[in-house]
């Protein structure tokens, strides 16, 4: 793998789900993800931002190979994964691991921490002796800031923050190159959130990990991300460097998201770009641009034609009116 190839890259990733319709025999398609392309290098963090139904969890499931894409592909190093790829082999599996949002359901309640940590090795490297496995697991435990006596305890004896550390430790057992973090701190208290974010930064520096950081919390995203992809109803609407997006958002949805996020500063002027209406259903997306029913600057063209991602002001935006002075 040469220096030019990014560690992880997506190419028009698409995922549809077929579900049964209301009438007998009717089939409907939920377009959960459409046309997602991105690049991620070693030691970088790409944040995927959006609200319910934007497809960020679907993206996580595709990248961790829990489900195959319906169309499009992604590349881990030199290996391409698309809908033809069958069950991933050991090396491919090891390359991408995941940390989930809810620390209370992501650890098996009936297994001790030691077992939880050693399990990926048991499954993929049965040749490693039990003693070596235990050694590696204990090492990992201290690496994430837990104490040796925690090895023999059950998950319910730990706090949310500690469980999240265990989840991170488990994800690292296979020495992955890419870590998918699905809202890793959303369920944690503020003070604990800071600890976990620091841990993630340390681990990224030490192991050169690439993070696919999924979050709806823009203040956390601003702190952690190098690049940001804003998603709405399964499609990317804006994609670029973090500072470009936060300082000069181009897409009206990004602007609305930023303005809706509360700022922890009472002196900051409250400028609310109020978005009317509800998030649309992914089964029946609006025609043209999916955002147009809620968009404050929508024009006729938006109801008829769907905009593609195009470079404007140093990033990619999918809006007919991007770059205009509105």
């Amino acid at each position: 793998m040469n220096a030019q190839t990014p560690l992880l890259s997506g190419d028009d990733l698409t995922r549809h789900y077929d579900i049964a319709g209301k009438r007998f025999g009717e089939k409907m398609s939920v377009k959960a993800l459409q046309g997602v392309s991105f690049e991620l290098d070693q030691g970088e963090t790409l944040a995927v931002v959006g609200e319910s139904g934007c497809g960020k969890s679907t993206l996580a499931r595709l990248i961790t190979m829990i489900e195959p894409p319906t169309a499009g592909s992604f590349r881990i190093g030199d290996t391409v994964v698309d809908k033809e790829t069958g069950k991933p082999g050991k090396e491919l599996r090891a390359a991408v691991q995941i940390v989930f949002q809810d620390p209370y359901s992501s650890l098996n309640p009936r297994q001790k921490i030691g077992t939880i940590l050693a399990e990926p090795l048991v499954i993929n490297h049965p040749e490693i002796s039990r003693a070596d496995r235990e050694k590696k697991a204990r090492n990992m435990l201290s690496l994430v800031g837990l104490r040796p006596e925690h090895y023999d305890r059950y998950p319910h004896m730990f706090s949310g923050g500690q469980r999240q550390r265990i989840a991170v430790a488990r994800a690292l057992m296979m020495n992955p190159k890419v870590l998918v973090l699905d809202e890793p701190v959303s369920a944690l208290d503020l003070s604990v959130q800071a600890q976990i974010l620091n841990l993630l930064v340390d681990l990224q520096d030490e192991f050169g990990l690439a993070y696919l950081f999924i979050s709806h919390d823009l203040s956390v995203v601003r702190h952690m991300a190098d690049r940001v992809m804003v998603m709405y109803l399964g499609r990317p609407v804006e994609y670029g460097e973090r500072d470009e997006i936060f300082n000069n958002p181009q897409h009206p949805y990004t602007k609305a998201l930023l303005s809706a996020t509360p700022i922890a500063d009472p002196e900051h002027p409250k400028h609310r770009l109020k978005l009317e209406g509800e998030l649309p259903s992914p089964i029946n997306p609006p025609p043209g641009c999916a955002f147009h029913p809620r968009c404050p600057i929508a024009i006729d063209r938006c109801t008829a034609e769907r905009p593609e991602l195009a470079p404007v002001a140093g990033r990619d935006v999918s809006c007919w009116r991007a770059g205009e002075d509105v």
Partner: protein
Amino acid sequence: MSLLEIENLTVEFQTAQGQFRAVDGVSLSVDQGELMAIVGESGSGKSVSMLALMGLLPWTATITADRLEFDGIDLVRQSARDRRKVIGKDMAMIFQEPMTSLNPCFTVGFQITEALKTHLGGSRATRRARAVELLNLVGLPEPERRLNAFPHQLSGGMNQRVMIAIAIACRPKLLIADEPTTALDVTIQAQILDLLLELREKEGMALILITHDMGVVAETAERVSVQYAGQKVEEQTVRDLFRDPHHPYTSALLSALPERAQGKKLPTLPGVVPGLFDRPEGCLFAPRCAHAFDLCHKRQADQAGAEDGFALCHTPLRKGVPASLEGQVRS
């Protein structure tokens, strides 16, 4: 006279592992039409104290208070029957999870008119008209059609609006909102918060907002009460709190905000909130406090004065400097 007076409220739970003190001597007073935010993390007892006020705790809870008065009525001595006349009518509460707070077996219209029927009576027609009026007030489009909808047919944001409609049906003097927007998306959160503020203006009701989100506090609250491990550790106006927090916990909480980060690493608080098994003697925050000294580990602090934000601390911070070190030469 203030609308709500809570003095020295303590709530203990009987658990399989022993008695657990979830709320420890909390005092609070809210005036007519005021907007108070109660901030804290898990284990702070912020929800439990309000649930105790509303009488919504299970039988395993023991509630004691020096004073628990709402609108002049003594809630401690009241019978359950008299209490039901007040709860839901003059004092209402909305909760975090709109999907599970509404009864999935009944339509939205039924649940709103149920609240009206219990407290205000009136004919079926007047109740229905009032229900439509309420749904309009909370910004739900096509209210007549929605009356016959079930909660699972509506989105999270819409369900939360319905809950608000039920809560304000009888024009309460006090509305308690327990993390009303935590389970909602950011853009919907903004709509709901704006709605709550708008309703407060229109109806002149007091609002107690329980949250862990400092951003929400900064944008909506007038006064803030900070709770830690069941105790109230500070109370100030929102501007003063963010500008000059007096309790070390508040200060640590604010510096943990990603928005205030200087560089890649955030300043963190070591340790965890004390639970049932590791309750320290003396100040509950002392094991994690950067400024703790001997006295802090031995004896709980008294509440400081108003100029120090009523901080529960032996050495409240003044502009970031602990009072005990003020005036000392630092090397």
